[in-house]
């Protein structure tokens, strides 16, 4: 199990990158899995920084690997409920001229990971993503 507690600020992204780098080496994961973990972690974390500014606590990240499945969990404390599994999809029909980036990060997480779960209790948002890994 690899865990990290970080402050709700974009500068913490560097710590997440280091945590994932260590985890990838420890479990001998491939480049693609490494990329997907980095991308999911960044998109989920930056969403928490951007949209839960009122959050009163730090953010916990937990990574684990079992039976060829990677699990990454984010716990965002002291925030309002926002179920990302029900978030609105970006407007893919917009031309590049009218394109807006809103919602794209969460869309990428849902597309590229195998499973995304959301739970809300005691004013804490818990997001868990899973990726099956071929080894």
């Amino acid at each position, binding site marked *: 199990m690899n865990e990290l507690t970080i402050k709700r600020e974009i500068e913490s992204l560097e710590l997440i990158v280091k945590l994932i780098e260590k985890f990838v080496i420890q479990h001998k994961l491939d480049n693609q899995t490494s*990329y997907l973990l*980095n*991308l999911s972690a960044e998109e989920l974390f930056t969403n928490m920084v951007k949209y839960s500014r009122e959050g009163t606590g730090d953010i916990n990240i937990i990574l684990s690997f079992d039976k060829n499945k990677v699990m990454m969990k984010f716990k965002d404390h002291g925030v309002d409920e926002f179920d990302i599994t029900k978030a609105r999809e970006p407007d893919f029909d917009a031309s590049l001229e009218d394109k807006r980036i809103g919602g794209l*990060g969460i869309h*990428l997480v849902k597309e590229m990971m195998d499973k995304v779960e959301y739970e809300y209790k005691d004013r804490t948002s818990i997001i868990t993503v899973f990726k099956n890994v071929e080894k």
Partner: protein
Amino acid sequence: MLEINVGENDIIFLKGRFDAAQVETAKSHLEKVTETCTLDFSELEYISSAGLGVLIATYQRLNKDGHKIKLRNMSKLVRDVFKFSRLDTLFEIE
């Protein structure tokens, strides 16, 4: 860390990680671009939606004056991000 360098024929080379922490660095370079340009991604290891946002904003600014952005030499993993964002058909990718 993201490095941006301008090479021969004004091709702009991006190297490293284009993540949310690098948005201001990227903007400060790309805001100087005023004409059609080519971005070379051969040493770009990673891009997230934050990076895509900067590229889209740059495209939109240039497009108002009839200019565009061409992207080239993407790795498969970076191209997948464009594909899942459905931007692979909107940007001109060599």
